[in-house]
């Protein structure tokens, strides 16, 4: 059996979960194994309704009062019970922040491998081979996992939810979870958003985005001048915000804003996936990096290979002419 676990995101099936269903449908077809979809915990019955037209053999509901809201303790214990009972060959989820938080617990509880953040699956061998990014996306690796059950999580957009097969499930069933209050050691409070302030970069037409390659705050005026010469908004990667050189609302990426300007000019940014998810929708991507193998070049339309300290001031000067 292939088991895909759906994640609730404020009332809806998480976008990553839909991609995991597509991955699951593909694995199920290639390996000739049945596909089951599990709606677990928070909001599970509504998730089951939302998933009612996903093509699968079984649609399973696993609910319990103690997992009506998410906790790593409760979810890991409940999912471990489902896996022990059903013995799926592969358990699939999206590589979300929630999955980072609890799926390793299931791996340790059951002593089974968890291959995280997968980008592709290859089938030209006895068992599927999974590829993941390593060394900050500079390289990728093929991973082989050997175990009766293997946990898998997929990087966002590794599979497209457009490929979803529709058709509904043959069976619906309920799984009874056994939990006691003492199993839940941690207490979670409600999710909240920090008051949005600053600039909305999502509507910007031109963005000049700066990364750690700028080296110090003192060099920041170089890119600020370029941005103002071009009439562009300035944005950045996470380290620049972490170091306090620019305010958080300038950050692009999985924990920042997602933008799709006409031109995204990236300056001294390596192209880690958590950054790329926030800007790969840009119409044109031009990237300056001194490392000709920088991962950002894999998604760039224009790969400018050179030293930003020389190129940026010169370019600014020429634009200002």
């Amino acid at each position, binding site marked *: 059996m292939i088991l895909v676990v759906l994640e609730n995101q404020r009332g809806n099936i998480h976008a990553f979960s839909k991609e995991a269903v597509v991955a699951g449908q593909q694995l199920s077809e290639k390996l000739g194994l049945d596909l089951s979809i599990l709606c677990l915990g928070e909001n599970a019955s509504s998730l089951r309704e939302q998933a009612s037209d996903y093509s699968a053999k079984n649609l399973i509901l696993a609910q319990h009062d103690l997992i009506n809201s998410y906790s*790593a303790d409760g979810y*890991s214990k409940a999912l471990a019970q489902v896996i022990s009972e059903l013995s799926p060959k592969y358990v699939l989820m999206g590589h*979300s*922040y929630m999955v980072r*938080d609890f799926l*390793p617990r299931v*791996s*340790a509880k059951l002593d089974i*491998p*968890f*291959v*995280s*953040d997968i980008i592709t699956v290859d089938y030209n061998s006895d068992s599927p*081979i999974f590829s993941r990014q*390593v*060394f*900050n996306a*500079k*390289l*990728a*690796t*093929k*991973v*082989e996992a*050997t*175990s009766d059950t*293997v946990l898998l999580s997929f990087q966002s957009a590794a599979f497209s939810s457009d490929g979803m097969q529709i058709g509904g499930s043959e069976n619906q069933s309920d799984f009874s979870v056994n939990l006691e209050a003492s199993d839940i*050691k*941690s*207490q979670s*409070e*409600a*999710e*909240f*958003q920090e008051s*949005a302030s600053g600039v909305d970069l999502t509507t910007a*037409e*031109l963005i000049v985005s700066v990364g750690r390659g700028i080296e110090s705050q003192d060099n920041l005026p170089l890119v600020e001048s370029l941005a103002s010469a*071009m*009439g562009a908004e300035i944005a950045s990667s*996470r*380290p620049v915000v972490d170091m306090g050189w620019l305010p958080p609302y300038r950050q692009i990426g*999985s924990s920042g804003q997602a933008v799709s300007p*006409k*031109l995204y000019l990236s300056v001294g940014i390596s192209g880690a996936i958590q950054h790329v998810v926030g800007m790969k929708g840009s119409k044109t991507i031009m990237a300056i990096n001194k490392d000709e*193998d920088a*991962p950002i*070049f*894999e*998604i*760039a*339309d*224009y*790969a*400018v*290979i*050179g030293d930003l300290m020389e*190129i940026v001031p010169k*370019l600014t000067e*020429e634009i200002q002419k």
Partner: protein
Amino acid sequence: MKIAVLTKAIPSYESSIRVDSSGSWIDESVVNFVVNESDSYALEEALQIKEKLNDDTEVVVVIMGNENNTSKVLKDGLAKGADRGIFINNENIDTDPLSIAKLFSENLKEESFDLIFSGLQSDDLGSGQTGVLIGELLGMSTATLGIETKMEDGNIKVKRELESGWFQWVTLPFPASISIQSGINEPRYPSLKGIMGAKRKDVKSLNISSSGDNKQKFIELFIPKTEKVTERITGDVDSIVARMLDILKNTLKVI
């Protein structure tokens, strides 16, 4: 309170990353090893907790790897203010997060740490699992992506980063294993006094007997393929800038 901080030595971002002759690892001889980014935030958080509690709290830096790659990172941790170090000498290249976590938990069990801090993700393997795995193996409560911590009523409260600008507070009883997100604080630099003092600090070296059974392994490293047709712009600064201007003006018409 006893706090362990896992700090990993990883290739610096300027290092050239080349696949070695085995095909399943990189050529380490041309690599400069530095502390993993989120781990340095984890260490700072532990040091700040120690300073705030102002009692006999102990901060212990823990590192696993071979001596050559790790010694500078370990010394740096001690120089920044950790009280002592634990070095788990592992000459093997382990890539399975579960076996890595087992090595940590077997070697740390006796210490009975109240808190284990780790980074949310290592820059080399990128599994994003080790801290949580160790927590489960040692029967601790766990949380990930900590972006703020507070001691409260004998528990630790952690503000967790969720996706796209959402957050959540969780309260964890001790012992707890918590992974830290970058940006939580401002990591300090070692002071001269710290650097001198580090030499006298205790480092316990542990040797591992074997690397355990790996349930997943790297079989081949490769350079990712380009998704797009990319024009590569190279040459001297003048010709690079001339081509960029031409694209901005004539192709994209944005200036």
